[in-house]
Protein backbone atom coordinates (compact mmCIF):
# COMPACT_ATOMS: atom_id res chain seq x y z
CA UNK A 1 0.00 0.00 0.00
CA UNK A 2 2.63 2.53 0.94
CA UNK A 3 5.38 3.30 -1.44
CA UNK A 4 8.65 3.80 0.35
CA UNK A 5 10.23 7.19 0.01
CA UNK A 6 12.70 7.48 -2.73
CA UNK A 7 16.03 8.16 -1.19
CA UNK A 8 17.00 11.69 -2.08
CA UNK A 9 20.64 11.90 -2.78
CA UNK A 10 22.18 14.18 -0.31
CA UNK A 11 24.22 16.97 -1.67
CA UNK A 12 26.43 17.42 1.28
CA UNK A 13 29.59 19.37 1.87
CA UNK A 14 31.45 19.90 5.05
CA UNK A 15 31.39 23.48 6.24
CA UNK A 16 34.50 25.56 5.70
CA UNK A 17 36.56 25.11 8.81
CA UNK A 18 36.63 28.80 9.68
CA UNK A 19 32.94 28.87 10.45
CA UNK A 20 33.19 26.38 13.23
CA UNK A 21 36.05 26.99 15.58
CA UNK A 22 36.28 24.31 18.21
CA UNK A 23 38.79 26.27 20.21
CA UNK A 24 36.30 28.98 21.05
CA UNK A 25 34.24 26.85 23.35
CA UNK A 26 35.46 26.73 26.94
CA UNK A 27 34.28 23.21 27.47
CA UNK A 28 36.02 22.03 24.37
CA UNK A 29 36.02 18.41 25.32
CA UNK A 30 32.29 18.42 25.86
CA UNK A 31 31.41 19.95 22.58
CA UNK A 32 33.79 18.21 20.28
CA UNK A 33 31.21 15.95 18.82
CA UNK A 34 29.02 18.94 18.16
CA UNK A 35 31.67 20.75 16.23
CA UNK A 36 32.63 18.12 13.78
CA UNK A 37 31.61 19.67 10.54
CA UNK A 38 27.85 19.71 10.45
CA UNK A 39 26.70 18.76 7.02
CA UNK A 40 24.64 21.52 5.54
CA UNK A 41 22.47 20.86 2.59
CA UNK A 42 23.60 23.12 -0.19
CA UNK A 43 21.05 25.39 -1.79
CA UNK A 44 21.60 27.08 -5.04
CA UNK A 45 23.88 30.02 -4.79
CA UNK A 46 21.22 32.59 -5.50
CA UNK A 47 19.47 31.82 -2.27
CA UNK A 48 22.16 33.27 -0.05
CA UNK A 49 20.22 35.44 2.31
CA UNK A 50 19.96 39.19 2.09
CA UNK A 51 21.72 40.06 -1.12
CA UNK A 52 22.16 43.75 -1.68
CA UNK A 53 19.24 44.33 -3.97
CA UNK A 54 16.81 42.41 -1.77
CA UNK A 55 17.67 44.47 1.24
CA UNK A 56 17.27 47.72 -0.61
CA UNK A 57 13.91 46.82 -2.11
CA UNK A 58 11.23 48.75 -0.35
CA UNK A 59 8.61 46.49 1.24
CA UNK A 60 5.63 46.20 -1.05
CA UNK A 61 3.20 44.86 1.52
CA UNK A 62 0.81 41.99 1.22
CA UNK A 63 -2.66 42.00 -0.16
CA UNK A 64 -4.97 40.65 2.51
CA UNK A 65 -8.31 39.62 1.09
CA UNK A 66 -11.56 40.98 2.42
CA UNK A 67 -13.30 38.00 3.95
CA UNK A 68 -17.03 37.81 4.05
CA UNK A 69 -18.25 36.91 7.49
CA UNK A 70 -21.81 36.08 6.56
CA UNK A 71 -21.13 32.39 6.11
CA UNK A 72 -19.83 32.10 9.62
CA UNK A 73 -22.56 34.21 11.10
CA UNK A 74 -25.38 32.34 9.39
CA UNK A 75 -24.01 28.94 10.18
CA UNK A 76 -23.31 29.76 13.77
CA UNK A 77 -26.81 31.15 14.13
CA UNK A 78 -28.29 27.99 12.66
CA UNK A 79 -26.35 25.74 14.99
CA UNK A 80 -27.15 27.85 18.03
CA UNK A 81 -30.82 27.96 17.10
CA UNK A 82 -30.89 24.19 16.83
CA UNK A 83 -29.25 23.77 20.20
CA UNK A 84 -31.44 26.27 21.99
CA UNK A 85 -34.65 25.11 20.36
CA UNK A 86 -34.05 21.67 21.81
CA UNK A 87 -33.90 23.18 25.27
CA UNK A 88 -37.04 25.15 24.62
CA UNK A 89 -38.77 22.09 23.25
CA UNK A 90 -38.10 19.98 26.30
CA UNK A 91 -39.06 22.78 28.64
CA UNK A 92 -42.24 23.27 26.69
CA UNK A 93 -43.10 19.60 26.75
CA UNK A 94 -42.65 19.46 30.50
CA UNK A 95 -44.59 22.61 31.29
CA UNK A 96 -47.35 21.81 28.84
CA UNK A 97 -47.94 18.33 30.14
CA UNK A 98 -47.87 19.58 33.69
CA UNK A 99 -50.37 22.29 32.87
CA UNK A 100 -52.76 19.79 31.39
CA UNK A 101 -52.38 17.32 34.19
CA UNK A 102 -52.86 19.72 37.06
CA UNK A 103 -56.58 20.44 36.59
CA UNK A 104 -57.32 16.75 36.54
CA UNK A 105 -55.11 16.19 39.54
CA UNK A 106 -56.87 18.89 41.46
CA UNK A 107 -60.24 17.47 40.58
CA UNK A 108 -59.16 14.05 41.66
CA UNK A 109 -61.18 12.91 44.58
CA UNK A 110 -58.92 10.04 45.43
CA UNK A 111 -55.35 10.18 46.54
CA UNK A 112 -53.35 10.12 43.34
CA UNK A 113 -50.61 7.98 44.74
CA UNK A 114 -52.49 5.43 46.78
CA UNK A 115 -55.73 4.84 44.97
CA UNK A 116 -56.26 1.99 42.58
CA UNK A 117 -59.42 3.35 41.06
CA UNK A 118 -59.55 4.80 37.65
CA UNK A 119 -62.78 6.66 37.10
CA UNK A 120 -62.02 9.36 34.65
CA UNK A 121 -65.15 9.95 32.68
CA UNK A 122 -67.88 12.21 33.76
CA UNK A 123 -67.73 14.97 36.28
CA UNK A 124 -66.34 13.14 39.26
CA UNK A 125 -62.80 12.05 38.81
CA UNK A 126 -61.35 9.49 41.11
CA UNK A 127 -58.14 7.98 39.99
CA UNK A 128 -54.88 6.84 41.37
CA UNK A 129 -51.77 5.17 40.17
CA UNK A 130 -51.12 2.64 42.93
CA UNK A 131 -52.11 -0.31 40.79
CA UNK A 132 -50.17 1.01 37.82
CA UNK A 133 -47.15 1.62 39.98
CA UNK A 134 -47.21 -1.88 41.34
CA UNK A 135 -47.52 -3.59 38.00
CA UNK A 136 -44.95 -1.38 36.33
CA UNK A 137 -42.36 -1.77 39.05
CA UNK A 138 -43.03 -5.46 39.47
CA UNK A 139 -42.69 -6.26 35.79
CA UNK A 140 -39.61 -4.11 35.31
CA UNK A 141 -37.76 -5.24 38.40
CA UNK A 142 -38.53 -8.86 37.62
CA UNK A 143 -37.29 -8.29 34.07
CA UNK A 144 -34.09 -6.83 35.45
CA UNK A 145 -33.68 -9.74 37.86
CA UNK A 146 -33.89 -12.15 34.95
CA UNK A 147 -31.90 -10.20 32.41
CA UNK A 148 -28.93 -8.96 34.42
CA UNK A 149 -27.46 -12.30 35.51
CA UNK A 150 -27.78 -13.62 32.01
CA UNK A 151 -26.36 -10.46 30.46
CA UNK A 152 -23.39 -10.51 32.82
CA UNK A 153 -22.83 -14.16 31.99
CA UNK A 154 -22.92 -13.39 28.30
CA UNK A 155 -20.56 -10.46 28.72
CA UNK A 156 -18.10 -12.55 30.70
CA UNK A 157 -18.29 -15.33 28.16
CA UNK A 158 -17.61 -12.99 25.28
CA UNK A 159 -14.74 -11.13 26.91
CA UNK A 160 -13.08 -13.75 29.08
CA UNK A 161 -13.86 -17.11 27.61
CA UNK A 162 -14.24 -16.87 23.87
CA UNK A 163 -11.64 -16.02 21.29
CA UNK A 164 -12.02 -12.87 19.25
CA UNK A 165 -13.13 -14.86 16.25
CA UNK A 166 -16.01 -16.51 18.03
CA UNK A 167 -17.06 -13.56 20.13
CA UNK A 168 -17.66 -11.37 17.08
CA UNK A 169 -20.54 -13.36 15.60
CA UNK A 170 -22.05 -14.16 19.00
CA UNK A 171 -22.14 -10.56 20.13
CA UNK A 172 -23.58 -9.68 16.75
CA UNK A 173 -26.44 -12.08 17.33
CA UNK A 174 -27.13 -10.83 20.84
CA UNK A 175 -27.09 -7.23 19.67
CA UNK A 176 -29.43 -8.07 16.84
CA UNK A 177 -32.12 -8.65 19.45
CA UNK A 178 -32.26 -4.89 19.77
CA UNK A 179 -33.30 -4.62 16.15
CA UNK A 180 -36.57 -6.45 16.70
CA UNK A 181 -39.42 -3.97 17.08
CA UNK A 182 -41.29 -4.21 20.36
CA UNK A 183 -44.64 -4.96 18.83
CA UNK A 184 -43.24 -8.17 17.49
CA UNK A 185 -42.02 -9.14 20.93
CA UNK A 186 -45.51 -8.42 22.16
CA UNK A 187 -47.09 -10.57 19.49
CA UNK A 188 -44.64 -13.37 20.02
CA UNK A 189 -44.89 -13.16 23.77
CA UNK A 190 -48.64 -13.43 23.69
CA UNK A 191 -48.99 -16.22 21.17
CA UNK A 192 -45.86 -18.29 21.66
CA UNK A 193 -44.09 -17.63 24.90
CA UNK A 194 -47.19 -17.28 27.06
CA UNK A 195 -48.57 -20.71 26.28
CA UNK A 196 -45.06 -22.12 26.59
CA UNK A 197 -44.57 -20.74 30.07
CA UNK A 198 -48.11 -21.51 31.21
CA UNK A 199 -47.36 -25.01 32.55
CA UNK A 200 -44.42 -23.68 34.51
CA UNK A 201 -46.61 -20.95 35.95
CA UNK A 202 -49.29 -23.41 36.95
CA UNK A 203 -46.73 -25.65 38.58
CA UNK A 204 -45.17 -22.79 40.51
CA UNK A 205 -48.52 -21.61 41.76
CA UNK A 206 -49.40 -25.04 42.95
CA UNK A 207 -46.15 -25.33 44.87
CA UNK A 208 -45.63 -21.92 46.42
CA UNK A 209 -48.94 -20.29 45.75
CA UNK A 210 -49.35 -19.48 49.41
CA UNK A 211 -46.82 -16.66 48.97
CA UNK A 212 -48.90 -13.71 47.77
CA UNK A 213 -46.37 -12.90 45.11
CA UNK A 214 -46.87 -16.22 43.46
CA UNK A 215 -50.54 -16.75 43.98
CA UNK A 216 -53.36 -16.92 41.53
CA UNK A 217 -53.57 -17.95 37.96
CA UNK A 218 -56.24 -15.91 36.31
CA UNK A 219 -54.63 -15.96 32.91
CA UNK A 220 -51.30 -17.69 32.72
CA UNK A 221 -50.74 -16.29 29.25
CA UNK A 222 -51.34 -12.66 30.03
CA UNK A 223 -49.50 -12.40 33.27
CA UNK A 224 -46.89 -10.07 34.63
CA UNK A 225 -44.58 -13.04 34.63
CA UNK A 226 -44.76 -13.49 30.86
CA UNK A 227 -44.45 -9.76 30.33
CA UNK A 228 -41.39 -9.67 32.57
CA UNK A 229 -39.72 -12.45 30.63
CA UNK A 230 -40.36 -10.64 27.36
CA UNK A 231 -39.08 -7.39 28.85
CA UNK A 232 -35.99 -9.24 30.02
CA UNK A 233 -35.35 -10.40 26.47
CA UNK A 234 -35.77 -6.85 25.24
CA UNK A 235 -33.34 -5.28 27.67
CA UNK A 236 -30.77 -8.05 27.41
CA UNK A 237 -28.87 -6.48 24.49
CA UNK A 238 -28.40 -3.14 26.26
CA UNK A 239 -27.18 -4.59 29.52
CA UNK A 240 -24.93 -7.12 27.85
CA UNK A 241 -23.41 -4.65 25.39
CA UNK A 242 -22.45 -2.16 28.08
CA UNK A 243 -21.19 -4.88 30.42
CA UNK A 244 -19.14 -6.26 27.58
CA UNK A 245 -17.51 -2.90 27.03
CA UNK A 246 -16.77 -2.53 30.71
CA UNK A 247 -15.29 -6.01 31.13
CA UNK A 248 -13.20 -5.60 28.00
CA UNK A 249 -11.60 -2.55 29.54
CA UNK A 250 -10.36 -4.32 32.65
CA UNK A 251 -6.71 -3.32 32.84
CA UNK A 252 -4.42 -6.08 31.73
CA UNK A 253 -2.25 -5.78 34.82
CA UNK A 254 -5.12 -6.57 37.19
CA UNK A 255 -5.79 -9.74 35.25
CA UNK A 256 -2.17 -10.70 34.95
CA UNK A 257 -1.58 -10.11 38.63
CA UNK A 258 -4.34 -12.58 39.45
CA UNK A 259 -3.12 -15.09 36.90
CA UNK A 260 0.43 -14.91 38.20
CA UNK A 261 -0.85 -15.96 41.62
CA UNK A 262 -2.16 -19.17 40.13
CA UNK A 263 -5.80 -18.19 40.03
CA UNK A 264 -8.35 -20.16 38.06
CA UNK A 265 -10.27 -18.34 35.40
CA UNK A 266 -13.24 -17.88 37.66
CA UNK A 267 -11.02 -16.51 40.39
CA UNK A 268 -9.49 -14.03 37.97
CA UNK A 269 -12.98 -12.87 37.11
CA UNK A 270 -14.04 -12.69 40.71
CA UNK A 271 -11.00 -10.73 41.84
CA UNK A 272 -10.10 -8.56 38.85
CA UNK A 273 -12.86 -8.29 36.30
CA UNK A 274 -16.02 -8.06 38.39
CA UNK A 275 -14.79 -5.51 40.93
CA UNK A 276 -13.50 -3.29 38.17
CA UNK A 277 -16.71 -3.55 36.22
CA UNK A 278 -19.14 -3.37 39.09
CA UNK A 279 -20.23 0.21 38.65
CA UNK A 280 -20.49 -0.26 34.91
CA UNK A 281 -22.72 -3.28 35.33
CA UNK A 282 -24.91 -1.47 37.84
CA UNK A 283 -25.20 1.44 35.47
CA UNK A 284 -26.07 -0.89 32.60
CA UNK A 285 -28.71 -2.60 34.70
CA UNK A 286 -30.32 0.71 35.54
CA UNK A 287 -30.39 1.66 31.88
CA UNK A 288 -32.08 -1.64 31.20
CA UNK A 289 -34.53 -0.92 33.98
CA UNK A 290 -35.31 2.44 32.47
CA UNK A 291 -35.95 0.83 29.15
CA UNK A 292 -38.25 -1.75 30.70
CA UNK A 293 -40.18 0.90 32.59
CA UNK A 294 -40.98 2.82 29.44
CA UNK A 295 -41.84 -0.12 27.24
CA UNK A 296 -45.35 0.32 26.02
CA UNK A 297 -46.54 -1.87 23.26
CA UNK A 298 -45.16 -5.27 24.16
CA UNK A 299 -46.62 -4.95 27.61
CA UNK A 300 -49.91 -3.68 26.28
CA UNK A 301 -50.31 -6.70 24.08
CA UNK A 302 -49.30 -9.29 26.60
CA UNK A 303 -50.86 -8.13 29.82
CA UNK A 304 -54.48 -8.97 30.37
CA UNK A 305 -56.27 -5.92 31.59
CA UNK A 306 -58.09 -6.88 34.74
CA UNK A 307 -61.76 -6.08 34.98
CA UNK A 308 -62.28 -2.85 36.90
CA UNK A 309 -64.17 -4.52 39.68
CA UNK A 310 -61.80 -7.39 40.27
CA UNK A 311 -59.86 -7.46 43.52
CA UNK A 312 -56.25 -6.49 43.50
CA UNK A 313 -53.74 -9.26 43.21
CA UNK A 314 -50.05 -8.68 43.85
CA UNK A 315 -49.14 -11.91 42.13
CA UNK A 316 -46.76 -12.03 39.25
CA UNK A 317 -49.12 -14.39 37.58
CA UNK A 318 -51.98 -11.95 37.48
CA UNK A 319 -52.65 -9.51 34.72
CA UNK A 320 -52.49 -5.81 35.20
CA UNK A 321 -51.65 -2.56 33.56
CA UNK A 322 -48.50 -0.53 33.56
CA UNK A 323 -48.43 3.22 33.15
CA UNK A 324 -47.59 2.86 29.52
CA UNK A 325 -50.02 0.08 28.70
CA UNK A 326 -52.91 1.82 30.42
CA UNK A 327 -52.43 4.93 28.35
CA UNK A 328 -52.07 2.91 25.18
CA UNK A 329 -55.08 0.76 25.92
CA UNK A 330 -57.33 3.77 26.24
CA UNK A 331 -55.94 5.66 23.32
CA UNK A 332 -59.27 5.88 21.61
CA UNK A 333 -60.93 7.67 24.48
CA UNK A 334 -59.12 10.93 25.01
CA UNK A 335 -62.18 12.99 24.35
CA UNK A 336 -62.27 15.33 27.27
CA UNK A 337 -59.49 17.46 28.67
CA UNK A 338 -60.05 16.21 32.19
CA UNK A 339 -59.81 12.61 31.07
CA UNK A 340 -56.78 13.32 28.98
CA UNK A 341 -55.29 15.15 31.91
CA UNK A 342 -55.54 12.07 34.10
CA UNK A 343 -53.67 9.99 31.57
CA UNK A 344 -51.11 12.71 31.13
CA UNK A 345 -50.60 12.73 34.89
CA UNK A 346 -49.88 9.03 34.75
CA UNK A 347 -47.54 9.59 31.82
CA UNK A 348 -45.68 12.26 33.71
CA UNK A 349 -45.12 9.97 36.67
CA UNK A 350 -43.70 7.39 34.30
CA UNK A 351 -41.49 10.00 32.71
CA UNK A 352 -40.13 11.24 36.01
CA UNK A 353 -39.42 7.74 37.25
CA UNK A 354 -37.70 6.78 33.99
CA UNK A 355 -35.65 9.93 34.02
CA UNK A 356 -34.58 9.39 37.62
CA UNK A 357 -33.49 5.84 36.85
CA UNK A 358 -31.52 6.94 33.78
CA UNK A 359 -29.92 9.81 35.65
CA UNK A 360 -28.85 7.50 38.43
CA UNK A 361 -27.38 5.14 35.87
CA UNK A 362 -25.32 7.97 34.46
CA UNK A 363 -24.13 9.15 37.83
CA UNK A 364 -23.08 5.66 38.84
CA UNK A 365 -21.24 5.21 35.57
CA UNK A 366 -19.41 8.49 35.94
CA UNK A 367 -18.45 7.89 39.50
CA UNK A 368 -17.24 4.42 38.67
CA UNK A 369 -15.30 5.73 35.72
CA UNK A 370 -13.66 8.41 37.85
CA UNK A 371 -12.45 5.83 40.30
CA UNK A 372 -10.64 3.85 37.67
Amino acid sequence: MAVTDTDATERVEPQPAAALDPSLSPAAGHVEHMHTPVPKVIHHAAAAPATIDQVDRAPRGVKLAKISRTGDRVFRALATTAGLSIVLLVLFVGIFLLALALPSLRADQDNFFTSRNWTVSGADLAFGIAGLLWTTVLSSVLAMAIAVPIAVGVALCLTQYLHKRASGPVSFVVDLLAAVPSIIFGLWGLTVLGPFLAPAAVWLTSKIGWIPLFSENVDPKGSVFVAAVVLAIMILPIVSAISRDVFAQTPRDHIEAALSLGATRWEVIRTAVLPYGRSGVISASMLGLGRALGETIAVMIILTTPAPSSPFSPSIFAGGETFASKIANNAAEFDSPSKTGAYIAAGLVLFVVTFAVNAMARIIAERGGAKS
Partner: protein
Amino acid sequence: MAKRIDVRNVDIYYGGFHAVEGVSMTVEPRTVTAFIGPSGCGKSTLLRTLNRMHEVIPGAHVKGSVQLDGTELYGQGIDPVAVRRVVGMVFQRPNPFPSMSIYDNVAAGLRLNGVKNKKILDDAVERSLMSANLWNEVKDRLGKAGIGLSGGQQQRLCIARAIAVEPQVLLMDEPCSALDPISTLAIEDLIGELQEQYTVVIVTHNMQQAARVSDQTAFFNLAAQGKPGKLIEIGPTEKIFSNPDEKATEDYITGRFG
Protein backbone atom coordinates in the same frame (compact mmCIF):
# COMPACT_ATOMS: atom_id res chain seq x y z
CA MET B 1 6.59 35.79 -3.78
CA ALA B 2 8.36 35.51 -0.51
CA LYS B 3 8.03 38.30 1.95
CA ARG B 4 9.87 39.66 4.91
CA ILE B 5 8.50 39.26 8.40
CA ASP B 6 8.96 41.88 11.09
CA VAL B 7 8.02 40.98 14.63
CA ARG B 8 8.08 43.86 17.08
CA ASN B 9 7.54 43.55 20.82
CA VAL B 10 5.10 40.74 20.67
CA ASP B 11 3.56 39.47 23.89
CA ILE B 12 1.30 36.45 23.78
CA TYR B 13 -1.43 35.74 26.32
CA TYR B 14 -3.72 32.80 26.87
CA GLY B 15 -6.50 34.47 28.77
CA GLY B 16 -4.71 35.96 31.73
CA PHE B 17 -1.66 33.76 31.40
CA HIS B 18 1.38 35.49 29.91
CA ALA B 19 2.93 32.86 27.67
CA VAL B 20 5.60 34.70 25.71
CA GLU B 21 7.06 38.14 26.29
CA GLY B 22 8.68 40.88 24.30
CA VAL B 23 9.77 39.15 21.10
CA SER B 24 11.30 41.17 18.29
CA MET B 25 12.91 39.71 15.23
CA THR B 26 13.20 40.01 11.48
CA VAL B 27 12.99 37.23 8.97
CA GLU B 28 14.38 38.03 5.55
CA PRO B 29 12.61 36.82 2.44
CA ARG B 30 13.69 33.49 0.99
CA THR B 31 15.49 32.42 4.11
CA VAL B 32 14.95 29.65 6.57
CA THR B 33 14.72 30.63 10.20
CA ALA B 34 14.75 27.97 12.90
CA PHE B 35 13.19 28.36 16.35
CA ILE B 36 14.96 26.18 18.88
CA GLY B 37 14.74 25.79 22.62
CA PRO B 38 13.45 23.49 25.34
CA SER B 39 9.81 22.40 25.51
CA GLY B 40 7.24 24.83 26.70
CA CYS B 41 9.20 28.02 26.14
CA GLY B 42 7.11 29.53 23.42
CA LYS B 43 8.55 28.43 20.07
CA SER B 44 5.36 26.93 18.71
CA THR B 45 3.29 29.60 20.37
CA LEU B 46 5.18 32.33 18.59
CA LEU B 47 5.07 30.44 15.33
CA ARG B 48 1.33 30.29 15.52
CA THR B 49 1.03 34.00 15.99
CA LEU B 50 2.65 34.49 12.63
CA ASN B 51 -0.50 33.19 10.96
CA ARG B 52 -2.88 34.03 13.78
CA MET B 53 -3.57 30.34 14.43
CA HIS B 54 -3.39 30.90 18.16
CA GLU B 55 -6.78 32.59 17.88
CA VAL B 56 -8.59 29.28 17.46
CA ILE B 57 -8.05 28.86 21.17
CA PRO B 58 -10.58 31.03 22.97
CA GLY B 59 -8.97 33.78 25.02
CA ALA B 60 -5.64 33.77 23.22
CA HIS B 61 -4.49 37.23 22.19
CA VAL B 62 -1.42 39.11 21.14
CA LYS B 63 0.05 42.51 21.94
CA GLY B 64 2.57 44.01 19.58
CA SER B 65 3.07 43.95 15.88
CA VAL B 66 3.69 41.39 13.19
CA GLN B 67 4.24 42.79 9.74
CA LEU B 68 4.52 41.09 6.42
CA ASP B 69 6.47 43.36 4.10
CA GLY B 70 5.09 46.31 5.99
CA THR B 71 1.48 45.14 6.14
CA GLU B 72 0.34 44.77 9.71
CA LEU B 73 -1.23 41.35 10.22
CA TYR B 74 -2.91 42.42 13.42
CA GLY B 75 -4.26 45.61 11.98
CA GLN B 76 -7.70 46.92 12.65
CA GLY B 77 -10.30 44.90 10.82
CA ILE B 78 -7.89 42.35 9.45
CA ASP B 79 -9.51 38.92 9.36
CA PRO B 80 -7.32 36.04 10.58
CA VAL B 81 -8.75 33.95 7.76
CA ALA B 82 -7.21 36.38 5.27
CA VAL B 83 -3.86 36.20 7.03
CA ARG B 84 -3.85 32.44 6.85
CA ARG B 85 -4.30 32.55 3.11
CA VAL B 86 -0.95 34.23 2.75
CA VAL B 87 0.89 32.49 5.56
CA GLY B 88 0.75 28.72 5.27
CA MET B 89 1.42 26.11 7.91
CA VAL B 90 2.56 22.52 8.09
CA PHE B 91 1.99 20.62 11.33
CA GLN B 92 3.88 18.15 13.44
CA ARG B 93 1.82 15.15 12.54
CA PRO B 94 0.84 14.75 8.89
CA ASN B 95 -2.88 15.49 8.67
CA PRO B 96 -4.24 14.98 5.17
CA PHE B 97 -8.03 15.17 5.01
CA PRO B 98 -9.28 11.57 5.25
CA SER B 99 -12.40 12.19 3.22
CA MET B 100 -10.40 13.42 0.21
CA SER B 101 -8.17 11.93 -2.45
CA ILE B 102 -4.59 13.05 -3.03
CA TYR B 103 -5.69 15.43 -5.73
CA ASP B 104 -8.53 16.80 -3.61
CA ASN B 105 -6.21 17.28 -0.66
CA VAL B 106 -3.76 19.39 -2.61
CA ALA B 107 -6.55 21.32 -4.28
CA ALA B 108 -8.45 21.77 -1.02
CA GLY B 109 -7.08 25.19 -0.18
CA LEU B 110 -7.95 26.54 -3.60
CA ARG B 111 -11.30 24.80 -3.93
CA LEU B 112 -12.55 25.75 -0.50
CA ASN B 113 -11.66 29.33 -1.21
CA GLY B 114 -13.71 29.44 -4.36
CA VAL B 115 -11.51 28.32 -7.23
CA LYS B 116 -13.51 26.12 -9.56
CA ASN B 117 -11.67 26.18 -12.84
CA LYS B 118 -10.42 22.67 -13.47
CA LYS B 119 -7.38 23.76 -15.47
CA ILE B 120 -6.21 26.08 -12.74
CA LEU B 121 -6.68 23.35 -10.15
CA ASP B 122 -4.88 20.74 -12.26
CA ASP B 123 -1.93 23.05 -12.81
CA ALA B 124 -1.77 24.00 -9.15
CA VAL B 125 -1.89 20.37 -8.04
CA GLU B 126 0.86 19.33 -10.39
CA ARG B 127 3.01 22.31 -9.59
CA SER B 128 2.65 21.87 -5.84
CA LEU B 129 3.26 18.14 -5.88
CA MET B 130 6.37 18.72 -7.96
CA SER B 131 7.62 21.37 -5.62
CA ALA B 132 7.01 18.97 -2.75
CA ASN B 133 8.96 16.21 -4.50
CA LEU B 134 5.93 13.98 -4.46
CA TRP B 135 4.67 14.23 -8.01
CA ASN B 136 6.51 11.24 -9.44
CA GLU B 137 5.37 8.97 -6.68
CA VAL B 138 1.69 9.78 -6.87
CA LYS B 139 1.00 11.12 -10.33
CA ASP B 140 -0.66 7.88 -11.35
CA ARG B 141 -2.91 7.65 -8.36
CA LEU B 142 -4.13 11.13 -7.69
CA GLY B 143 -7.61 9.75 -7.09
CA LYS B 144 -6.54 7.47 -4.28
CA ALA B 145 -7.11 8.35 -0.65
CA GLY B 146 -4.61 10.72 0.88
CA ILE B 147 -4.31 8.67 4.03
CA GLY B 148 -3.07 5.63 2.13
CA LEU B 149 0.43 7.09 1.83
CA SER B 150 3.38 6.52 4.13
CA GLY B 151 4.18 9.03 6.87
CA GLY B 152 6.85 10.86 4.94
CA GLN B 153 4.71 10.99 1.84
CA GLN B 154 1.75 12.28 3.82
CA GLN B 155 3.83 15.08 5.21
CA ARG B 156 4.99 16.01 1.74
CA LEU B 157 1.36 15.92 0.70
CA CYS B 158 0.57 18.36 3.47
CA ILE B 159 3.40 20.59 2.29
CA ALA B 160 2.04 20.43 -1.25
CA ARG B 161 -1.39 21.31 0.12
CA ALA B 162 0.05 24.30 1.95
CA ILE B 163 1.97 25.67 -1.02
CA ALA B 164 -0.81 25.11 -3.52
CA VAL B 165 -2.43 28.34 -2.36
CA GLU B 166 0.85 30.14 -3.04
CA PRO B 167 1.49 31.62 0.37
CA GLN B 168 4.14 34.21 1.03
CA VAL B 169 5.48 32.45 4.04
CA LEU B 170 5.57 28.80 5.06
CA LEU B 171 5.49 27.97 8.75
CA MET B 172 6.54 24.49 9.83
CA ASP B 173 5.86 23.26 13.35
CA GLU B 174 8.27 20.37 14.01
CA PRO B 175 7.41 18.85 10.64
CA CYS B 176 9.75 15.87 10.97
CA SER B 177 9.30 14.84 14.57
CA ALA B 178 6.75 12.16 13.68
CA LEU B 179 8.78 10.81 10.77
CA ASP B 180 11.52 8.24 10.33
CA PRO B 181 15.10 9.43 9.58
CA ILE B 182 14.93 8.82 5.83
CA SER B 183 11.71 10.77 5.44
CA THR B 184 13.21 13.45 7.68
CA LEU B 185 16.15 13.87 5.35
CA ALA B 186 13.81 14.02 2.38
CA ILE B 187 11.84 16.82 4.02
CA GLU B 188 15.01 18.68 4.91
CA ASP B 189 16.12 18.53 1.29
CA LEU B 190 12.73 19.81 0.36
CA ILE B 191 13.07 22.77 2.71
CA GLY B 192 16.27 23.65 0.94
CA GLU B 193 14.39 23.80 -2.33
CA LEU B 194 11.31 25.54 -0.94
CA GLN B 195 13.54 28.27 0.34
CA GLU B 196 14.02 29.46 -3.22
CA GLN B 197 10.42 30.53 -3.39
CA TYR B 198 9.12 30.99 0.14
CA THR B 199 10.17 32.47 3.40
CA VAL B 200 10.33 29.55 5.80
CA VAL B 201 10.13 29.49 9.58
CA ILE B 202 10.59 26.14 11.21
CA VAL B 203 10.27 25.06 14.82
CA THR B 204 12.42 22.12 15.68
CA HIS B 205 13.53 20.15 18.68
CA ASN B 206 16.38 18.73 16.71
CA MET B 207 19.38 21.04 16.91
CA GLN B 208 21.29 19.28 14.20
CA GLN B 209 18.32 19.75 11.93
CA ALA B 210 18.28 23.47 12.72
CA ALA B 211 21.96 23.65 11.94
CA ARG B 212 21.46 21.73 8.71
CA VAL B 213 18.60 23.64 7.15
CA SER B 214 18.45 27.16 8.51
CA ASP B 215 20.14 30.43 7.70
CA GLN B 216 19.09 32.09 10.92
CA THR B 217 18.38 30.55 14.29
CA ALA B 218 16.38 31.92 17.20
CA PHE B 219 16.82 30.43 20.64
CA PHE B 220 13.90 30.60 23.07
CA ASN B 221 13.86 29.86 26.73
CA LEU B 222 11.89 30.62 29.86
CA ALA B 223 13.20 33.77 31.57
CA ALA B 224 12.94 31.91 34.86
CA GLN B 225 10.82 29.18 36.34
CA GLY B 226 7.19 30.27 36.09
CA LYS B 227 7.95 33.20 33.85
CA PRO B 228 6.90 33.67 30.25
CA GLY B 229 9.05 32.38 27.43
CA LYS B 230 11.28 34.82 25.66
CA LEU B 231 13.66 35.13 22.79
CA ILE B 232 17.11 34.79 24.24
CA GLU B 233 19.17 35.17 21.13
CA ILE B 234 18.78 35.28 17.40
CA GLY B 235 21.47 35.31 14.75
CA PRO B 236 23.04 33.58 11.77
CA THR B 237 23.00 29.83 12.26
CA GLU B 238 26.75 29.38 12.07
CA LYS B 239 27.23 31.93 14.78
CA ILE B 240 24.59 30.56 17.11
CA PHE B 241 26.03 27.09 16.89
CA SER B 242 29.67 28.01 17.22
CA ASN B 243 29.95 31.31 18.98
CA PRO B 244 26.73 32.38 20.62
CA ASP B 245 26.56 35.60 22.60
CA GLU B 246 24.42 34.36 25.47
CA LYS B 247 25.53 31.78 27.96
CA ALA B 248 22.08 30.25 28.04
CA THR B 249 22.27 29.66 24.32
CA GLU B 250 25.61 28.02 24.62
CA ASP B 251 24.45 25.85 27.48
CA TYR B 252 21.52 24.65 25.43
CA ILE B 253 23.58 24.04 22.31
CA THR B 254 26.11 22.03 24.21
CA GLY B 255 23.49 19.95 25.86
CA ARG B 256 23.81 21.25 29.38
CA PHE B 257 20.02 21.43 29.62
CA GLY B 258 16.88 20.89 27.56
